Protein backbone atom coordinates (compact mmCIF):
# COMPACT_ATOMS: atom_id res chain seq x y z
CA UNK A 1 0.00 0.00 0.00
CA UNK A 2 1.28 3.46 -0.87
CA UNK A 3 2.39 5.21 2.33
CA UNK A 4 0.87 8.50 1.28
CA UNK A 5 -2.54 6.85 0.90
CA UNK A 6 -2.55 6.13 4.67
CA UNK A 7 -2.83 9.84 5.34
CA UNK A 8 -5.49 12.42 4.47
CA UNK A 9 -4.65 15.27 2.08
CA UNK A 10 -4.88 17.63 5.06
CA UNK A 11 -2.33 15.60 7.06
CA UNK A 12 0.05 15.41 4.09
CA UNK A 13 -0.21 19.18 3.59
CA UNK A 14 0.56 19.71 7.29
CA UNK A 15 3.58 17.39 7.04
CA UNK A 16 4.86 19.59 4.21
CA UNK A 17 4.52 22.67 6.43
CA UNK A 18 6.39 20.92 9.26
CA UNK A 19 9.10 19.72 6.88
CA UNK A 20 9.68 23.17 5.48
CA UNK A 21 9.62 24.94 8.84
CA UNK A 22 12.04 22.49 10.47
CA UNK A 23 14.38 22.67 7.48
CA UNK A 24 14.42 26.48 7.72
CA UNK A 25 14.93 26.44 11.51
CA UNK A 26 17.81 23.98 11.24
CA UNK A 27 19.36 25.85 8.34
CA UNK A 28 19.30 29.10 10.34
CA UNK A 29 20.76 27.32 13.37
CA UNK A 30 23.51 25.77 11.26
CA UNK A 31 24.40 29.18 9.80
CA UNK A 32 24.27 31.29 12.95
CA UNK A 33 24.82 28.75 15.72
CA UNK A 34 21.72 30.16 17.38
CA UNK A 35 18.51 28.36 18.22
CA UNK A 36 15.22 30.08 18.86
CA UNK A 37 13.10 29.56 21.94
CA UNK A 38 9.92 29.70 19.87
CA UNK A 39 9.05 26.12 19.02
CA UNK A 40 6.17 26.06 16.56
CA UNK A 41 4.90 22.46 16.78
CA UNK A 42 3.60 20.22 19.53
CA UNK A 43 5.25 16.92 20.44
CA UNK A 44 2.28 15.08 18.96
CA UNK A 45 2.64 16.86 15.60
CA UNK A 46 6.37 16.17 15.51
CA UNK A 47 5.88 12.52 16.45
CA UNK A 48 3.36 11.95 13.67
CA UNK A 49 5.57 13.70 11.15
CA UNK A 50 8.63 11.73 12.29
CA UNK A 51 6.71 8.43 11.96
CA UNK A 52 5.66 9.35 8.45
CA UNK A 53 9.30 10.15 7.54
CA UNK A 54 10.46 6.82 8.89
CA UNK A 55 7.94 4.91 6.84
CA UNK A 56 9.24 6.65 3.72
CA UNK A 57 12.87 6.09 4.70
CA UNK A 58 12.33 2.41 5.44
CA UNK A 59 10.63 1.91 2.09
CA UNK A 60 13.63 3.47 0.34
CA UNK A 61 16.16 1.60 2.49
CA UNK A 62 14.59 -1.72 1.51
CA UNK A 63 14.51 -0.87 -2.19
CA UNK A 64 17.39 -1.48 -4.57
CA UNK A 65 16.64 1.41 -6.90
CA UNK A 66 16.87 5.19 -6.51
Amino acid at each position, binding site marked *: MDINSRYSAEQLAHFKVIEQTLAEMNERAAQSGE*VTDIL*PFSEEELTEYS*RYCQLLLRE*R*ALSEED
Partner: protein
Amino acid sequence: MSSGRYIQTILEHLRQHADLPPIIGRKGDARTFREEKLALKAEGYPVRKTRALVKKYMAGNLDRFTQALTADCILVPVPSGSGKNLLTEVFAVELSKLTGASLLSAGIIGKTHHYEAKNNLSILKRVNDPIGYHIDSKAFASETHGKKVIIVDDLIGSGESCVQLKRAISRENVRVHGFANLLTVENYYPTINDLTRFVGRFTSLGVVKDLEALTFAQKVFNTFGDFTRQKMNRVEREIRNEATAIKFKECITRADAQTRRHQNHIHYGHQQQILSRAARAL
Protein backbone atom coordinates in the same frame (compact mmCIF):
# COMPACT_ATOMS: atom_id res chain seq x y z
CA MET B 1 37.44 11.11 54.87
CA SER B 2 37.86 14.22 52.68
CA SER B 3 34.88 15.59 50.75
CA GLY B 4 36.69 14.68 47.50
CA ARG B 5 36.82 11.07 48.63
CA TYR B 6 33.09 11.17 49.56
CA ILE B 7 32.26 12.46 46.07
CA GLN B 8 34.35 9.75 44.46
CA THR B 9 32.66 7.02 46.51
CA ILE B 10 29.18 8.24 45.60
CA LEU B 11 30.13 8.40 41.91
CA GLU B 12 31.67 4.90 42.06
CA HIS B 13 28.41 3.49 43.44
CA LEU B 14 26.29 5.29 40.86
CA ARG B 15 28.49 4.20 37.97
CA GLN B 16 28.73 0.64 39.19
CA HIS B 17 24.93 0.33 39.08
CA ALA B 18 24.37 2.39 35.93
CA ASP B 19 23.13 0.77 32.76
CA LEU B 20 25.86 1.52 30.21
CA PRO B 21 25.38 -0.59 27.07
CA PRO B 22 28.46 -1.40 24.97
CA ILE B 23 29.13 0.86 22.00
CA ILE B 24 29.64 -1.38 18.97
CA GLY B 25 31.41 0.62 16.33
CA ARG B 26 34.82 1.53 15.07
CA LYS B 27 36.35 4.56 16.76
CA GLY B 28 37.67 7.09 14.31
CA ASP B 29 37.84 10.64 13.06
CA ALA B 30 34.40 11.65 11.82
CA ARG B 31 35.47 14.53 9.56
CA THR B 32 35.62 12.51 6.35
CA PHE B 33 32.43 10.66 7.24
CA ARG B 34 30.59 13.95 7.83
CA GLU B 35 31.80 15.32 4.49
CA GLU B 36 30.62 12.19 2.71
CA LYS B 37 27.29 12.40 4.51
CA LEU B 38 26.86 16.05 3.54
CA ALA B 39 27.52 15.19 -0.11
CA LEU B 40 24.83 12.48 0.04
CA LYS B 41 22.43 14.89 1.74
CA ALA B 42 22.97 17.45 -1.02
CA GLU B 43 21.92 14.79 -3.55
CA GLY B 44 18.86 13.75 -1.49
CA TYR B 45 20.45 10.49 -0.25
CA PRO B 46 20.27 8.39 -3.41
CA VAL B 47 19.72 4.76 -2.39
CA ARG B 48 22.64 3.16 -4.24
CA LYS B 49 25.21 5.72 -3.16
CA THR B 50 23.93 5.63 0.42
CA ARG B 51 24.21 1.84 0.48
CA ALA B 52 27.73 2.01 -0.97
CA LEU B 53 28.84 4.38 1.80
CA VAL B 54 27.26 2.21 4.49
CA LYS B 55 29.01 -0.88 3.14
CA LYS B 56 32.32 0.95 2.96
CA TYR B 57 32.18 1.84 6.67
CA MET B 58 30.77 -1.56 7.67
CA ALA B 59 33.61 -3.36 5.90
CA GLY B 60 36.13 -2.68 8.65
CA ASN B 61 33.66 -3.68 11.33
CA LEU B 62 32.11 -6.94 10.15
CA ASP B 63 33.67 -9.12 12.87
CA ARG B 64 32.64 -6.71 15.57
CA PHE B 65 29.04 -6.72 14.35
CA THR B 66 28.74 -10.48 13.82
CA GLN B 67 30.21 -11.18 17.27
CA ALA B 68 27.96 -8.73 19.09
CA LEU B 69 24.71 -9.17 17.19
CA THR B 70 22.75 -12.39 16.78
CA ALA B 71 19.37 -13.51 15.51
CA ASP B 72 17.81 -12.91 18.94
CA CYS B 73 18.55 -9.16 18.64
CA ILE B 74 16.14 -6.55 17.33
CA LEU B 75 17.56 -3.46 15.68
CA VAL B 76 15.98 -0.11 16.55
CA PRO B 77 17.13 2.70 14.24
CA VAL B 78 17.24 6.19 15.76
CA PRO B 79 14.55 8.24 13.98
CA SER B 80 16.17 10.77 11.69
CA GLY B 81 16.40 14.27 13.18
CA SER B 82 15.86 15.84 9.77
CA GLY B 83 13.46 13.16 8.59
CA LYS B 84 15.69 12.74 5.53
CA ASN B 85 18.78 10.84 6.67
CA LEU B 86 18.70 7.51 4.88
CA LEU B 87 22.08 6.33 6.23
CA THR B 88 20.80 4.98 9.54
CA GLU B 89 17.91 3.10 7.94
CA VAL B 90 20.13 1.55 5.25
CA PHE B 91 22.71 0.65 7.91
CA ALA B 92 20.01 -1.08 9.99
CA VAL B 93 18.76 -3.01 6.94
CA GLU B 94 22.31 -4.13 6.05
CA LEU B 95 23.06 -5.09 9.68
CA SER B 96 19.90 -7.17 9.73
CA LYS B 97 20.98 -8.99 6.54
CA LEU B 98 24.48 -9.56 7.95
CA THR B 99 23.56 -10.82 11.42
CA GLY B 100 20.04 -12.22 11.11
CA ALA B 101 18.81 -9.72 13.71
CA SER B 102 15.27 -8.52 13.15
CA LEU B 103 14.36 -4.93 12.45
CA LEU B 104 11.78 -2.94 14.41
CA SER B 105 8.91 -1.90 12.14
CA ALA B 106 9.07 1.71 10.96
CA GLY B 107 6.73 4.21 12.55
CA ILE B 108 6.69 2.76 16.09
CA ILE B 109 8.98 5.48 17.44
CA GLY B 110 8.70 9.18 16.62
CA LYS B 111 10.93 12.07 17.62
CA THR B 112 9.49 14.91 19.70
CA HIS B 113 12.16 17.60 19.25
CA HIS B 114 12.47 20.38 16.69
CA TYR B 115 16.20 20.87 16.23
CA GLU B 116 18.57 18.24 14.90
CA ALA B 117 21.06 17.18 17.59
CA LYS B 118 24.01 18.61 15.66
CA ASN B 119 22.42 22.08 15.62
CA ASN B 120 21.59 22.15 19.29
CA LEU B 121 24.57 20.71 21.07
CA SER B 122 24.83 23.27 23.82
CA ILE B 123 23.41 21.96 27.07
CA LEU B 124 22.33 25.52 27.87
CA LYS B 125 19.97 25.57 24.90
CA ARG B 126 19.07 21.92 24.80
CA VAL B 127 16.94 22.37 27.92
CA ASN B 128 14.36 24.24 25.81
CA ASP B 129 14.15 21.61 23.10
CA PRO B 130 15.30 18.33 24.64
CA ILE B 131 15.96 15.42 22.33
CA GLY B 132 13.05 13.09 22.94
CA TYR B 133 11.16 10.15 21.48
CA HIS B 134 7.61 8.89 21.72
CA ILE B 135 7.09 5.14 21.56
CA ASP B 136 3.94 3.27 20.61
CA SER B 137 4.11 1.10 23.75
CA LYS B 138 1.86 -1.74 22.63
CA ALA B 139 3.51 -2.26 19.24
CA PHE B 140 7.00 -1.86 20.74
CA ALA B 141 6.36 -4.41 23.51
CA SER B 142 4.93 -6.86 21.02
CA GLU B 143 7.90 -6.65 18.62
CA THR B 144 10.67 -6.57 21.22
CA HIS B 145 9.35 -9.32 23.50
CA GLY B 146 12.10 -11.89 24.11
CA LYS B 147 14.61 -9.96 21.98
CA LYS B 148 17.77 -8.03 22.80
CA VAL B 149 17.27 -4.43 21.79
CA ILE B 150 20.15 -2.79 19.89
CA ILE B 151 19.94 0.91 19.04
CA VAL B 152 21.32 1.72 15.59
CA ASP B 153 22.65 5.10 14.48
CA ASP B 154 25.06 6.10 11.73
CA LEU B 155 27.43 8.08 13.94
CA ILE B 156 27.86 8.42 17.69
CA GLY B 157 29.52 11.53 19.08
CA SER B 158 28.26 12.67 22.44
CA GLY B 159 25.62 9.96 22.19
CA GLU B 160 22.80 12.48 22.60
CA SER B 161 20.27 10.79 20.29
CA CYS B 162 21.19 7.20 21.21
CA VAL B 163 21.10 7.87 24.95
CA GLN B 164 17.81 9.73 24.86
CA LEU B 165 16.30 6.90 22.84
CA LYS B 166 17.73 4.40 25.36
CA ARG B 167 16.10 6.40 28.16
CA ALA B 168 12.77 6.42 26.33
CA ILE B 169 13.02 2.65 25.80
CA SER B 170 13.90 2.06 29.47
CA ARG B 171 10.69 3.88 30.38
CA GLU B 172 8.94 1.07 28.49
CA ASN B 173 10.70 -1.32 30.91
CA VAL B 174 12.81 -2.70 28.10
CA ARG B 175 16.60 -2.98 28.43
CA VAL B 176 18.94 -1.81 25.68
CA HIS B 177 21.80 -4.25 25.07
CA GLY B 178 24.03 -2.11 22.86
CA PHE B 179 24.54 0.76 20.43
CA ALA B 180 25.62 -0.16 16.89
CA ASN B 181 27.26 2.57 14.83
CA LEU B 182 29.12 2.91 11.56
CA LEU B 183 31.60 5.23 13.21
CA THR B 184 32.19 6.22 16.82
CA VAL B 185 33.84 9.51 17.69
CA GLU B 186 34.02 8.55 21.36
CA ASN B 187 33.29 5.06 22.63
CA TYR B 188 33.94 5.57 26.33
CA TYR B 189 31.62 6.71 29.07
CA PRO B 190 32.95 9.24 31.62
CA THR B 191 35.27 7.52 34.08
CA ILE B 192 35.20 8.10 37.84
CA ASN B 193 38.23 10.36 37.43
CA ASP B 194 36.46 12.37 34.69
CA LEU B 195 33.36 12.82 36.85
CA THR B 196 35.31 13.66 40.01
CA ARG B 197 37.46 16.18 38.15
CA PHE B 198 34.33 17.76 36.65
CA VAL B 199 32.63 18.18 40.03
CA GLY B 200 35.95 19.48 41.38
CA ARG B 201 35.88 22.34 38.86
CA PHE B 202 32.73 23.66 40.53
CA THR B 203 33.95 23.16 44.13
CA SER B 204 37.33 24.74 43.44
CA LEU B 205 35.63 27.83 42.00
CA GLY B 206 33.42 28.00 45.11
CA VAL B 207 30.25 27.65 43.03
CA VAL B 208 29.36 24.38 44.75
CA LYS B 209 29.94 24.41 48.50
CA ASP B 210 31.18 21.35 50.39
CA LEU B 211 27.77 20.51 51.84
CA GLU B 212 25.99 20.39 48.51
CA ALA B 213 28.84 18.67 46.64
CA LEU B 214 27.41 15.18 47.12
CA THR B 215 24.00 16.16 45.76
CA PHE B 216 25.67 18.02 42.91
CA ALA B 217 27.78 14.94 42.06
CA GLN B 218 24.54 12.97 41.72
CA LYS B 219 23.11 15.66 39.42
CA VAL B 220 26.27 15.58 37.30
CA PHE B 221 26.02 11.81 37.02
CA ASN B 222 22.34 12.00 36.03
CA THR B 223 23.17 14.61 33.40
CA PHE B 224 26.34 13.13 31.88
CA GLY B 225 26.96 9.64 33.28
CA ASP B 226 25.39 7.64 30.46
CA PHE B 227 26.55 9.84 27.56
CA THR B 228 29.97 9.37 26.01
CA ARG B 229 32.84 11.36 27.50
CA GLN B 230 32.58 13.87 24.65
CA LYS B 231 29.49 15.56 26.06
CA MET B 232 30.92 16.25 29.52
CA ASN B 233 34.38 17.15 28.22
CA ARG B 234 32.81 19.71 25.90
CA VAL B 235 31.06 21.40 28.83
CA GLU B 236 34.18 21.18 30.98
CA ARG B 237 36.15 23.13 28.39
CA GLU B 238 33.58 25.94 28.59
CA ILE B 239 33.88 26.38 32.37
CA ARG B 240 36.45 29.15 32.46
CA ASN B 241 35.49 31.17 35.52
CA GLU B 242 32.96 31.59 38.30
CA ALA B 243 30.35 33.15 36.02
CA THR B 244 30.35 30.30 33.48
CA ALA B 245 30.42 27.77 36.32
CA ILE B 246 27.28 29.35 37.85
CA LYS B 247 25.56 29.22 34.45
CA PHE B 248 26.39 25.54 33.98
CA LYS B 249 25.48 24.68 37.56
CA GLU B 250 21.97 26.06 36.95
CA CYS B 251 21.79 24.22 33.69
CA ILE B 252 22.90 20.90 35.19
CA THR B 253 20.28 21.33 37.93
CA ARG B 254 17.58 21.84 35.28
CA ALA B 255 18.85 18.99 33.12
CA ASP B 256 18.91 16.71 36.17
CA ALA B 257 15.31 17.65 37.04
CA GLN B 258 14.32 16.98 33.45
CA THR B 259 16.06 13.59 33.49
CA ARG B 260 14.30 12.65 36.71
CA ARG B 261 10.93 13.71 35.33
CA HIS B 262 11.53 11.52 32.30
CA GLN B 263 13.00 8.58 34.20
CA ASN B 264 10.50 6.22 35.66
CA HIS B 265 10.12 6.35 39.43
CA ILE B 266 11.41 2.82 39.81
CA HIS B 267 14.77 3.89 38.39
CA TYR B 268 14.99 6.95 40.61
CA GLY B 269 13.94 4.96 43.68
CA HIS B 270 16.62 2.42 42.79
CA GLN B 271 19.21 5.20 42.58
CA GLN B 272 18.21 6.43 46.05
CA GLN B 273 18.75 2.92 47.42
CA ILE B 274 22.22 2.85 45.85
CA LEU B 275 23.05 6.20 47.44
CA SER B 276 21.77 5.08 50.85
CA ARG B 277 23.99 2.00 50.62
CA ALA B 278 26.93 4.23 49.62
CA ALA B 279 26.26 6.56 52.57
CA ARG B 280 26.21 3.60 54.97
CA ALA B 281 29.47 2.34 53.51
CA LEU B 282 31.23 5.66 54.14
